[in-house]
């Protein structure tokens, strides 16, 4: 691990130099909100934000992505043959991703990179990307990363972690990818003061006011939790929009659609949401998750129970707080996690009796 000091005067210059070797992405303010976007030449990421409106998961897993293309024109030899759409897997770098969002990438990777199945679209994009994190010194009151297996200076999933020191940035090069990026940017003035990072981390962690408890989730009986009495109450206000799932950095569900125009067509994948009634509709018309309560329960059980049991990698949440802030009816995962974590099966019996 190497520490590099970057004078803010050299920051723009370094990024411009790196832009020769990398396609740069970063947070940019559009209308009222920050959003991760490809940076134009010379455009700088804007760090005057807490976090982006939507998570940067779309960089690896776009909301709509063409996978295959085909032609229905029978005069062509290759009609009805699916062909991969060309993708751009040249190196790129995300500058200014928050540590919570970087950690979420690893949770999503558990799904797209399994021993049995590997998603080439996601993995190619992932391997092509260098993640340059910006430590988070001003968390919101809805951030609960420290108790969600993450933190404002968390390093998992990052190649480089940058902290703001006023007139300079201090960067920790965590991987070879990170080192390569620093070299391309020409940032080479080493520093040797790891204590600064520790102090920054402690101060930032002290600003996190929101917490969740997850210690009992793994031990609680799955079926009992599934049958817990609080689901109707929680699900009541839900309007089954997909806001929580679309803004969530760890939600990975997608749907595959063919779109045909004239004689040419594409097969594309689009984000899907377990909140939508048609998410689980079978061809027969039967829908195993027909009610709102079932769908809401699925979302939270997946994040806070099934995932915990299956991967033993903690909860499927990094505490970014987006769903808490954006839910139109104030369904709060923190409150729900508390209810699930403190649930005792005996309560269920009492409720039934």
């Amino acid at each position, binding site marked *: 691990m190497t520490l590099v000091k970057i004078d803010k005067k050299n920051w723009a210059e370094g990024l411009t130099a790196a832009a020769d070797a990398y396609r740069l992405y970063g947070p940019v303010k559009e209308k009222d909100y920050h959003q991760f976007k490809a940076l134009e030449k010379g455009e700088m990421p804007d760090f005057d934000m807490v976090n982006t409106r939507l998570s940067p998961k779309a960089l690896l897993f776009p*909301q*709509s*992505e063409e996978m295959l293309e085909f032609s229905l024109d029978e005069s062509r030899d290759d009609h009805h043959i699916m062909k991969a759409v060309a993708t751009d897997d040249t190196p790129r770098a995300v500058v200014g991703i928050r540590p919570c969002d970087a950690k979420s990438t690893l949770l999503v990777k558990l799904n797209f990179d399994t021993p049995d199945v590997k998603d080439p679209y996601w993995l190619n994009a992932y391997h092509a990307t260098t993640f340059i994190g910006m430590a988070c010194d001003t968390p919101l009151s809805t951030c609960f990363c420290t108790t969600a297996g993450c933190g404002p200076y968390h390093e998992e999933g990052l190649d480089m972690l940058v902290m703001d020191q006023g007139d300079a940035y201090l960067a920790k090069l965590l991987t070879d990818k990170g080192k390569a990026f620093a070299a391309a940017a020409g940032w080479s003035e080493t520093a040797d003061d790891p204590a600064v990072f520790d102090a920054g981390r402690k101060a930032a962690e002290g600003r996190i006011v929101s917490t969740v408890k997850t210690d009992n989730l793994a031990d609680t009986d799955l079926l009992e939790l599934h049958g817990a009495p609080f689901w109707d109450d929680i699900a009541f206000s839900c309007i089954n929009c997909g806001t929580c799932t679309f803004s969530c950095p760890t939600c990975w569900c997608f749907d595959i659609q063919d*779109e045909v125009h004239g004689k*040419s067509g594409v097969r594309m994948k689009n984000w899907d949401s377990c909140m939508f009634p048609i998410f689980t509709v079978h061809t027969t018309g039967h829908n195993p998750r027909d009610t709102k309560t079932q769908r809401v329960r699925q979302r939270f059980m997946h994040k806070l129970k099934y995932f915990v049991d299956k991967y033993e990698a903690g909860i499927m949440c990094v505490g970014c707080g987006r769903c808490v802030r954006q839910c139109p009816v104030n369904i709060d995962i923190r409150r729900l996690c508390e209810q699930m974590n403190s649930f005792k099966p005996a309560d269920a019996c009492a409720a039934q009796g």
Partner: protein
Amino acid sequence: MELMGVEPDRLHFSWISSAESTKFVNVVKEVTEKVKAIGPNNHFIKDTAKVA
């Protein structure tokens, strides 16, 4: 539609009895003339899916 920027002449309504073949022909002519005047539909066409 007009509010969104579709020309009003792209949408026509009429009422013709089954016995009014002359009116039918006249309306076809009139509609065609009007659409020719505003030119082709450039906006409201979907070619291939654009992905963001």
